[in-house]
């Protein structure tokens, strides 16, 4: 108990309401788990296209999270340190992907990054890389929808660094790069990992934009949809359970084992 005697009706009512909400989150997950037979899970697990979809999703999400760090951390740092009129606008731009419906993201990416897009066409011409129905397209979708998580988590980390620590490092003879790498980065490491985990989770969960820009090669969420359309609930729910266990495992792994408590909430307390 945190210092207040909590025996009032208020806490009783609030716990009841809160418990209802927690049940609402847990019931569908248990329902999914109890709806399967070991046989159906085994049957789905050995399907080569299911395996391929899962591996593809993990690869793409991991690569996305790395790219997001590379591009997002520098942006988070300048947003945290710079003060100028217009800063608020840049901050708002970073949050835009959170607010756009996923299919709109898919359409917008298709227009700009498709074979005839203003970016897609020259990229295809000069590098041979196509974003339409390709691994690169999957990563593109994942990156677009998950970049706010990387930037905002890093931003929180940078905002919480005592500026005096960076300043004292400068007076001790270290230039800006050395200060950033030796002092600032280690201090925000946990925030960066939080961002990495959130970005990974968001990337793995994306469906709406990928289904438009890159239905094939199928990611796990797309494959589940595919199985659902073709065979109804049986195979798709078995694969859903596999993916659920996998994502929860990654989630718990990051949150508790790899980076300490709270690392994955994204809302540092």
């Amino acid at each position, binding site marked *: 108990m945190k210092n207040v005697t909590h025996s009032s009706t208020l806490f009783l009512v609030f716990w009841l309401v809160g418990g209802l909400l927690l049940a609402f989150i847990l019931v569908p997950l248990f329902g999914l788990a109890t709806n399967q037979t070991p046989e159906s899970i085994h049957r789905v697990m050995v399907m080569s296209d299911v395996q391929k979809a899962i591996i593809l999703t993990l690869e793409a999400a991991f690569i996305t999270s790395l790219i997001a760090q590379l591009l997002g951390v520098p942006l988070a740092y300048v947003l945290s340190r710079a003060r100028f009129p217009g800063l608020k606008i840049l901050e708002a731009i970073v949050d835009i992907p959170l607010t756009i419906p996923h299919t709109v993201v898919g359409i917008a990416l298709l227009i700009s990054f498709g074979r005839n897009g203003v970016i897609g066409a020259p990229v295809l011409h000069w590098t041979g890389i196509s974003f339409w129905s390709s691994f690169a397209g999957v990563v593109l979708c994942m990156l677009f929808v998950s970049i706010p998580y990387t930037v905002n988590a890093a931003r929180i980390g940078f905002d919480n660094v005592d500026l005096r620590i960076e300043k004292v490092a*400068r*007076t001790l*003879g270290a230039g800006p790069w050395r200060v950033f790498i030796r002092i600032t980065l280690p201090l925000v490491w946990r925030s960066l990992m939080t961002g990495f985990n959130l970005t990974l989770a968001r990337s793995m969960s994306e469906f709406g934009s990928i289904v438009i820009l890159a239905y094939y090669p199928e990611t796990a969420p797309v494959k589940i949809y595919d199985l659902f359309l073709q065979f109804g609930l049986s195979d798709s729910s078995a694969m859903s359970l596999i993916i659920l266990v996998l994502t929860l495992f990654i989630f718990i792994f990051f949150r508790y084992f790899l980076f300490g408590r709270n690392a994955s909430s994204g809302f540092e307390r």
Partner: protein
Amino acid sequence: MSKGSLVLDALQVKLGGFKLHDISLSVEPGEILVILGPNGAGKSVLLETIAGFHRLHQGGIRLGDLNLAQLAPEQRHIGFVFQSYALFPHLDVLQNIRFALPDSERSRKQGVDKANLLLERFALTSLAKRRPQDLSGGEKQRVALARAMATEPSLFLFDEPFAAMDAQIRLNLSEEIRLMLKDAGVPAIFVTHDQLEAQVLADRLGVLHNGSLIQSGNVTEVFSRPANAFIASFVGMENIYEGTVHQILPDGAIIKTGDCHLLIKQQNFSFLLGEPVNIAIRPEDITLGACSNSGHRMSNEWEATIRSVTPFGPLHKVRLEAGLSICAYVFKQGENGMNLIPGARVKIRLPAEFLHVLK
């Protein structure tokens, strides 16, 4: 270590809505200048400007022959000790110190030796592997000083390093810093809002208010002859009265305040007859004695009535009423046969040489 003196020449800084106005000062090698001022006066801005974190709007900063204003913070060789010390929390004590070694030394035997010497000198050898969060306030200070010394600074700046500490510890740490600075023999500036700290540390004192240096001089000067009523009240001169110049004498004046006429001894008395002035005296400069009839008004002696007596650290603070409302300090022991209880009558004397006239 170069041993040049620090010279600020009409320095101006603009920072958002805040401004530093025409700050000029110089600090000699081995000298400690304390800048005293309330929160928001611009003390930190001033130090950070000297260290290179704010652009100069006008004016210059020189350290010996160097024009500091042209250099990046990492090129200025300044030992900056921040509030709460700003140790690197992810590095242990030794790593904190080694971070400050020049690139050329860091990974070589020379650097190892130097770090070890510093550990030894600041009695940190046994703490070398500790993280900052496991250190006491005094240990943190020693690490911060050792780390700053590792760069062989040509100037020391201190930004209220004791802000978060208990009064008792503060004073011990101030004395430690003073000894180290005297030993280092480079100029040093220490900013604080605590007048006690200022007294303990300062060779010279400057008072900063709203971005301007409004008085500077030695400690006694500022504390007993503050330039205006703001400084007077900030340095704890509890007795400040409004009055007018009643008569000008060869070596002072007589000031009328309420019904009282106060004799002032002051060289270079610069006020005009009839001019409104403030008149101030420190509580510890007022003498209390048992009542007798020998006093007479022109020697600033009266009988007064004790209103209250409250303990005040090692002293008692006595509030008295004698036409003026007066505050005085006495030692606890009821010296001089006085009876210090509310309502009692005592003789008070405001020595003419400690009364100070200001704007």
